[in-house]
Structure formats: C-alpha cells, structure tokens
C-alpha cells in the first residue's frame, strides 16, 4: 500500500513588519499632543486636602498668590485693586468661569480675603481653592 505523505502545514506567522510603523505613529502622536506647562515665575507650595473635586480646566482662571502676596493672572502680575477689573473682563469671556486660587500655604489670609472681596465686587462668585490630594 502506498503511503500518502502528509503535506507539511504552513507555519502560522504574525506579520510584524508594520509594528514599528504603529509604534512610531503612537510615539509621534504623543510627542505632538503633549503640552508642557510653562515654568511659572511665581513659586507656590499648595496646601493639601482630602475632600477635593476636579476643576473643569476649560472654565478655570488661575490666580497665583505667593507667600508675600504677589498676584499673577495669565503671567501678568497685578495688584489687589486691579483684580476686580481683570475678573470682570474674564467673566465677559466666559460666564461660567471658576476662579482657581493657587495660593501658597504660608500666605496670610488677609490677602486672600481682600482678593475674595474684589471677586465679589466683580460678581465672579465661583471659586475653588486648589489643593493637592492628601495621601
């Protein structure tokens, strides 16, 4: 009896030639879409808290207040009496604006109270005190 020879099965292979294309595509996507936070002039050590919520970035206007009481908005340094005017302008651009305080832990509360009074005058009533999550 003649033996029927089994034909060898073709080896299954995953084509990996385009793997590098995929990897480079992803890499380039991440490189292009990454935005680096610019180094701020003002140095702020934020307080820590537990009951913190996420702030929607699209409506946030960040007010930097450092230890000594220097105030910065959009990289412009301003004085306390100017806060009202700046916030009125910001409120015109976005009605749902939230003022985010990036205030140093050691700032005296008096400065903050004065700023908040200015915010009230400007009718910018939604505020958020930025903090880091307490571990």
């Amino acid at each position, binding site marked *: 009896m003649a033996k029927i020879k089994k034909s060898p099965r073709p080896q299954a292979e995953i084509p990996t030639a385009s793997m*590098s294309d995929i*990897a480079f595509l992803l*890499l380039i996507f991440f490189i292009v879409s990454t935005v680096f936070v610019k180094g701020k002039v003002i140095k702020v050590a934020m*307080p820590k808290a537990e009951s913190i919520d996420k702030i929607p970035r699209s409506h946030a206007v960040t007010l930097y207040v450092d230890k000594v009481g220097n105030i910065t908005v959009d990289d412009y340094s301003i004085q306390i009496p100017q806060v009202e005017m700046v916030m009125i302008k910001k409120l015109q651009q976005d009605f749902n604006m939230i003022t985010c305080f990036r205030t140093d832990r050691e700032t005296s509360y008096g400065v903050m109270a004065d700023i908040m009074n200015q915010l009230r005058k400007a009718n910018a009533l939604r*505020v958020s*005190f*930025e903090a880091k999550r307490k571990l």
Partner: protein
Amino acid sequence: MLRPRKKRAMGGIPTASMSDVAFLLLIFFLSTTKFDMKYGLGLVLPAPTTEETVKVKLKDDNLTKILINKDGLVQVNESIVPLEQLQEKISAMVKKNPDMVIMLKTDRQSNYNNMINVLDQLRLAGAEKINLSTN
C-alpha cells in the same frame, strides 16, 4: 571575452529592532508624562452687598461660628477644638440640624493653610452652607 559581472551585495540597514526602539521610547514617554490636573475645594461666594440686599437674620441655633486665630487654633462656639476632632463635631451638628450655617472666620494674619485645613474638615463633615469671613 565577456565575463558575467558578479552581482554586488545589496547594502541593507537592519530594521528588525526598529519596533523595539520605538516601543521603548513610547513606553518611556507614556510612563513619564504627568498630566497637570486641577483639583480643589469649590465654594460659591455670596453676591456683593448692595442697597437692595435684604438682610436675613439667622436664628442663633442655625449658626455655628468657627474662629481661626493667627496661630492656627480653632474655636467652635466658644470652645477650642483640635483639628482632628473637628470633623466629628461638625458632622454631628449638621446631622442634627441640616440648616446649619457655618461661619468660618479667619484672622487676617493666619496662614492660608490653616483655613484650608478647616474648610477641608468641614466639607468632609458634610457641611454645605459655609460662609467665609475675616476680621
């Protein structure tokens, strides 16, 4: 006499490890990228006082005064309370009377951090009606 020319060997760059390189870079960027999320303690400030503002008198039972002095000591209704016990105390008060308004009065010379710590505890205790003031 014509001799058949020898074919030159093609010079090739090995691309097999290209995907390894790309993935390595990709994973490096993925793991080192840190998103700058904004987290904070949200609060809505009261509207500015005008001549038309109607003053509402609060009953004494519905008002809790919390004072923070410049050293960070916290006083609740005439008794000094350590920060660790504040949440428990306020939580009991708010449960007993859901209309409780908490007035957080911070000394102008007190650190911002002290105010945030107390505000955090108040929010953890479930207090919703919080009013900030200063002397």
